[in-house]
């Protein structure tokens, strides 16, 4: 009875939140309403829709032993309590994606992005995570690629793998670009982030040699040293002798990250990657909790309008109209194909009882969506003038603070003279103008919220804390991503020349790492050199690739449903699949062929060529720009081609099974009675 009242109250709270968002016109509303609408919707969706998925569609069975129970080895197959695993899984899926995407999409106003984040997760993102987790759990923890191969055929399996590798390259490039833009000309940030490397190595030796296996105490020690480095960064930035040696251009920082990625990929895991992973998990969970508390304590008003005029495609941060680009820009947080890799990796091997998959798969993704809503709040509490001054490319803003104020006034927002400089001084930076990528504006938003909640006067410290936290786990993604990309490349290359496939052969490791690093490093460097800032072209490419991976995952999910005799429920995956395909193919097509040179890669190449002909652009620079435009166009087309092939081969398989030309055989592991039942 009490529970029912609780669920009804949650539903009413959600309705109240949305009602306020819908009815508020022309005056600023409080961030609390956004949070209330989101949380209310999550609770209702969890109670009703995830229950339907769990018991009607998937028929989760508490009497059926999970892989963790059957294959338990207390190393990777470990039966784990559901709340613990929820935390573990959430820490694995949430990264920079849900934080950066919403901040960029705030150029359309806070409302379109928020609606997509909340309803997208309920009907698409959480469904994808849940069905892949379920499928993998029923198949002894098999990966997405293996499931695609076994359920749909070897061609689909190979395509899925190529798609994952290509997405990884774009993902790493764009995330590294976000860090580069946050750290350029910032001695404080560079010093703090550089310190994470010796700290991680120290932790590595601590856990490996000095106190073997004592990971927790090593990590706590690491976090304390990290906070020390954060405070030390201010001292470095203020020192006239030290600051210059930590002040670097974007290009230098980009090459530094590339070198770091290579070294991290060939070093033993325990030395750098594993300790960094622990460090960033600590920071991630701690900071997200802090942000939630901050928003609840401060309850800041949203200064960004609900909807801006940029929905017509004239936005300065990235080009393109509301549909499809709001849905591409926010990938993580609403639906992220990348999660399918995590949901078919470590987590399914740790589920104790089958019904727990509901909280972990569906609930874990709701939690990530909530992080995205908080990021949206952090962006929307900033003055729109400040927000656009930080995020728009310098060329668009007009090159200087004074010109930027003029440009921003032209967009209908205000930026007082000296306002951006004063803010920069307040957070301990030389300039905040045009620091595209989302990380700096998110850090300013978080600093505003934190200093409101936990004491004024520490703005600079909070800003750099937020930068450090973002850079830390982006660099952890760079480590782990390069390594995973290296394994995939070795597996693919092994088909061509078998010795390259041996992961234990050192020359192969070095070669494969170099190939992967060169791949994302190329896009990163081009992004840094791009006069429009790089985010404008790379972030949409990342969004498109991530959601195309989601459509691969939803295809695999649909195949699983059809083969297990659940064809009547097939809409639970086909509905999001149709939407995601519509969004990504529209966006992909526009990015390649649109006539507007700000939007279409090919028309931008044409305009650049015309500028050379007119003598207004140096031919060497133009040649590079044109080559990159064409390369980006090819990449976008290749993503669309691979996805089309996966969809077509999957649909063929569905048809064959539904028409009974092929037996409906799903390769689930056999039923074994669980001891945890009852």
């Amino acid at each position, binding site marked *: 009875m009490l529970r029912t009242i609780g669920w009804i109250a949650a539903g009413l709270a959600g309705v109240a939140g949305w009602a306020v968002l819908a009815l508020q016109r022309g005056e600023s509303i409080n961030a609390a309403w956004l949070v209330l609408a989101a949380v209310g919707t999550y609770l209702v969706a969890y109670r009703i829709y995830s229950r339907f998925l769990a018991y009607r569609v998937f028929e989760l069975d508490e009497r059926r032993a999970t892989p963790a129970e059957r294959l*338990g*080895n*207390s*190393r*990777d197959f*470990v*039966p*784990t*309590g*559901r*709340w*613990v*695993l929820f*935390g*573990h899984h959430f*820490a*694995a*899926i*949430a*990264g*920079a*994606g849900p934080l950066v995407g919403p901040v960029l999409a705030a150029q359309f106003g806070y409302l379109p992005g928020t609606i997509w984040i909340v309803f997208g997760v309920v009907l698409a993102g959480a469904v994808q995570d849940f069905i892949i987790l379920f499928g993998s759990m029923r198949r002894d923890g098999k*990966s997405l690629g293996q499931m695609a191969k076994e359920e749909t055929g070897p061609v689909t399996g190979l395509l899925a793998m190529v798609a994952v590798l290509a997405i990884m390259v774009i*993902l790493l490039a764009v*995330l590294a670009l976000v860090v580069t833009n946050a750290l350029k000309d910032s001695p404080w940030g560079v010093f703090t982030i550089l310190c994470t490397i010796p700290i991680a190595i120290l932790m590595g030796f601590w*856990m*490996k040699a000095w106190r*073997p*296996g004592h*990971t*927790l105490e090593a*990590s706590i020690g690491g976090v304390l040293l990290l906070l020390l480095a954060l405070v030390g960064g201010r001292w470095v930035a203020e020192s006239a002798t030290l600051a210059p040696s930590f002040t670097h251009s974007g290009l230098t920082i980009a090459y530094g990250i590339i070198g770091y990625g290579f070294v991290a990929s060939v070093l033993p*895991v*325990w030395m750098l*990657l*594993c300790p960094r*992973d*622990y460090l960033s*998990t*600590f920071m991630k*969970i701690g900071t997200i909790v802090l942000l939630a508390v901050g928003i609840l304590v401060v309850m800041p008003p949203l200064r960004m309008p609900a909807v801006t005029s940029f929905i017509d495609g004239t936005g300065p941060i990235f080009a393109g109209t509301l549909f499809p680009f709001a849905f591409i820009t926010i990938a*993580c947080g609403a639906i*992220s194909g*990348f*999660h399918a*890799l*995590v949901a*078919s*990796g*470590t987590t399914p091997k740790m589920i*104790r009882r089958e019904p727990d998959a509901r909280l972990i798969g569906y609930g874990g993704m709701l939690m990530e969506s909530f992080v995205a809503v908080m990021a949206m709040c952090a962006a929307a509490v900033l003055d729109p003038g400040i927000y656009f001054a930080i995020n728009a490319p310098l060329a668009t803003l007009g090159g200087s603070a004074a010109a930027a104020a003029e440009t921003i006034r032209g967009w209908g927002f205000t930026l007082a003279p000296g306002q951006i400089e004063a803010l920069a001084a307040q957070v301990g930076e030389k300039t905040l103008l045009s620091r595209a990528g989302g990380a700096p504006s998110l850090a300013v938003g978080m600093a505003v919220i934190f200093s409101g909640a936990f004491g004024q006067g520490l703005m600079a410290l909070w800003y750099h804390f937020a930068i450090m936290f973002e850079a830390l*786990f982006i660099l*952890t*993604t760079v480590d*782990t*991503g390069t*390594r*995973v990309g290296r*394994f995939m490349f070795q597996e693919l290359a092994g088909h061509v020349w078998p010795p390259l496939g041996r992961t234990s052969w050192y020359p192969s490791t070095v070669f494969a790492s170099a190939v992967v690093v060169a791949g994302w490093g190329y896009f990163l460097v081009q992004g840094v050199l791009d006069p429009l800032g790089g985010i404008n072209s790379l972030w949409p490419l990342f969004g498109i690739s*991530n959601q195309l991976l989601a459509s691969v995952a939803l295809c695999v999910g649909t195949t699983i449903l059809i083969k297990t005799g659940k064809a009547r429920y097939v809409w639970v995956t086909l509905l999001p699949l149709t939407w995601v395909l519509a969004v990504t193919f529209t966006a992909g097509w526009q990015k390649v062929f649109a006539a507007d040179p700000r939007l279409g890669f090919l028309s931008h190449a044409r305009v650049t060529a015309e500028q050379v002909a007119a003598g207004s652009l140096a031919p060497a620079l133009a040649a590079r720009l044109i080559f990159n435009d064409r390369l980006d166009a090819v990449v976008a087309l290749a993503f669309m081609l691979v996805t089309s092939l996966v969809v077509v081969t999957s649909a063929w398989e569905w048809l064959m099974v539904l028409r009974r030309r092929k037996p409906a055989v799903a390769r689930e592991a056999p039923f074994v009675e669980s001891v945890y039942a009852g």
Partner: protein
Amino acid sequence: MRGNGPEQTETGASRRARLYSTVLAVFGMPDYAAHCRHLREQHPGRPLPTEREFFDEFVRARYGDGPTRCC
């Protein structure tokens, strides 16, 4: 939340041990005590690894293949 099996009345020490295991699991860290318990119960004849051997094996299994972290 359900516990991890049949439980007797808890002492302070065992509650602390359980909290420690929980934290290790959330952060994806190796749990040596749980591994030894598992080996003693399930494979009584097998020799126990040292803490360092277990740590090496755990790191290999965890970062061996597939992404462990998302974007």
